[in-house]
């Protein structure tokens, strides 16, 4: 009897018959959510761009940015996309052990990035840039902080997957869960590439426009 119930639970009512598009509901929902999230970052990045050079007092971007440092932490985050792919591939092969290693690696790389961001914020703070110093501080911290929060949520999901896996509840039949978290993770990475380019790489000068 128990086994019958399992079968039902594994194919929730929603997927009792094949979906109209053939895509799983969860994946469609994740894509839609990420599309919506794009506009969230779009609005934040627009704010930052609008206030580029609008600050009346320093510190200005050129006073605080340490491009080589942030490049390294950006690379760390990008590398985590690779380990995410490897985690998914391992689980698809049925290699649960490897998938755990790669999930852990991804989460650790993400943690490294967030840690780097915390360090960076602290450094900027000591150089006199706070949330309320000027519109640069305001728009910079809120934009990058929002992204950092996204990464942190991603890490939480990765660790949850890892925890499920260690409890033996993340076998190849649940590969979809890893795929979903992977989609989210890659999205957050891509957004960072945009933020890194717009905020750090495009020069803004050192004073009010």
């Amino acid at each position, binding site marked *: 009897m*128990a086994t019958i*119930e*399992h079968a*039902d*639970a*594994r194919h*929730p*009512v*929603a997927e*009792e*018959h094949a*979906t*109209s*598009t053939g*895509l799983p*509901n*969860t994946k*469609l*929902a*994740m894509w*839609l*959510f990420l*599309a*919506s*999230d*794009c*506009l*969230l970052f*779009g*609005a*934040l990045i627009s*704010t930052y761009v*609008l*206030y580029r050079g*609008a*600050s*009346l007092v320093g510190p200005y971007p050129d006073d605080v940015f340490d491009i080589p440092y942030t490049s390294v932490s950006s690379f760390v985050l990008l590398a985590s996309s690779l380990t995410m792919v490897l985690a998914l591939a391992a689980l698809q092969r049925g290699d649960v052990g490897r998938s755990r290693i790669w999930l852990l690696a991804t989460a650790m790389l993400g943690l490294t990035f967030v840690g780097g961001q915390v360090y960076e914020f602290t450094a900027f703070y000591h150089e006199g840039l706070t*949330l*309320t110093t*000027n*519109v640069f501080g*305001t*728009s910079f911290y*809120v934009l990058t902080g*929002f992204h950092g929060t996204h990464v942190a949520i991603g890490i939480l*999901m990765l660790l*949850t997957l890892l925890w*499920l896996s260690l409890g033996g*509840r993340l076998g190849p039949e*649940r590969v979809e*869960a890893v795929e*979903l*978290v992977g989609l*989210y993770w890659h999205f957050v990475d891509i957004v960072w590439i945009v933020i890194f380019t717009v905020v750090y790489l495009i020069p803004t000068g050192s004073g*009010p426009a």
Partner: protein
Amino acid sequence: MASVSVPGERARGLLRRPTATTGLWSWFTTVDHKKIGILYGITAFGFFLVGGVEALLIRVQLAQPDQSIVSPAVFNELFTMHGVTMVFLVVMPLSAAFFNYLIPLMIGARDVAFPRLNAYSYWAFLFAGIFIYSSWFLGGAPNGGWFGYPPNSVLDPSRGMTFYALGLLIAGVASTVSAVNLAVTVINMRAPGMTLFRMPVFVWMGLVVQLLLAFSLPIVTIGLVELLFDRRFGTHFFDAGAGGSPVLWQHLFWLFAHPEVYILVLPAMGIVSEILPVFSRKPLFGYQFVVFSGIAIGFIGFGVWAHHMFAVGLGPIANTAFGISTMIIAVPTGVKIFNWLGTMWRGDLRFATPMLFAIGFIAMFVIGGLSGVSHAVVPSDYQQTDTYYIVAHFHYVLFGGAIFGLFGGLYYWWPKVFGRMLNERWGKVNFWIMLIGFNMTFGPMHVLGLQGMPRRIQSYPASLGLTFWNLVATIGAFLIAIGVLVFLVNAVASFRRAKEMVADPWDARTLEWATSSPPPEHNFDEIPVVHSLDDLWHRKYAETQGGRVVPVPAGGSGEDAGDGGHGAHAIHMPGPSYYPLVASLGLPIIGYGIIFNWWLVAVGLVVTLAGFYGWILEPSAE
């Protein structure tokens, strides 16, 4: 994420799995889209009454010149809360009630794509409403207008606008989650044969609305976050003194709030598109054109936002561009109206209450649409903007439009939802009182605006000659209130009669009428197979070559009718759950925490996480 469900030997939740599907408690744990739809409807109607009382107080204050029945401070809270309530806590959730209840039935599905997320959306919405309203007792209600323009909304010393920002953020979470859920339902959960162009127009409008929500809400979310940070943490987003820009908020707000107008009115347009054919006994005229014009409205709706900002000083080029885009959006709107007229043309019109409201919708919406065109004429709008002319315009769209449509929907689907008809005679009384009261209230506001009465003023001097029409408007507002009371009495009275349980009382055309009234928990005993648009109609009637229509003999309707013949085999429905309620309860706690005490934020986060982890570990059905 949240939807990841894990098969386990037995439920490992923190809480014991609820099992009841009837009784009071079952309403707190239900994941049934029909029950959630009813919850949405009741909650929204409750807020409708509250928002209506706020409107009456506004009208009492303005009935005569130079009155001070309501102080300026309270007046500002009243019109702000009236707007916030009617937009976010009434029309949106009332539409959500119809979408929730009807979309799965109309597309032949057993439930929405993510039943537990659906419950989560409802509870988050309810908590958002309670959170915003608790502000009356916790330091002042929002008082900066529903549009919350900074710097005024940032500088205001009361807690009101902080409640506004946080409350709308919570409501935004609810709406975004629900939008994704319902959009996936429409895209992915259709019954076999239910192609996109066999979907009822209501479902189409539902899809457009969910996409509008999904792509407009994040923009205002950022606006609200920035407003919150300016108020709570002293950032400078909208602080011109530090180089920030108050106009940025206006862009972020209207980039959401104009699509929002269509989010509010498209559901009603969908309802009207369902009611008119049934009571004209004809298919919808130009189905594809109605659908495409709805999609077009959704698209163009993202390109007209600055027509709320013609007087801000964006410059003649921007004003020209947005003036013209606004004119363009009138075209698909016109197409819809002409097609509705085409539906009635040569029909066999039966004026039951739903039909009266649908026709009322058309008649009133035309007025709102035409006054809207006069705003697209930018120089003319320089005079009309922020006057009562605007108040008149958008009430013709949102009350004469959205609310009339939703009331029509209530009368139309009431027998489906509750298995009982609403009284027809009282329905007609309800309609006529509301129609007359509505026009008495908002018709004169056109004149008032043109005669120079600005919006959001607590009083006006007698010398401006605005007294007469203000008094008329106030009397009209009380007529509307009587109309709403008639509906309430009618609704309550319907429960005192025995259930009639007629599956298809209106001789309707769409799938929700193919199942019993009220439908069983699993909606259809057999998932229907769809062969055409208006599938139910074609099971009942056949069209001959010459366009003549003859009833299909009984029993000849094929094997698809959900007549409950095969009840024997088990249909597994998702089980009830506490976790959506728990997870959403975290949101208002976080909200209060941001206002009052940071430890509460931590508590809220813990509650949210506990809810989601319980959720993940709980299989969707047992």
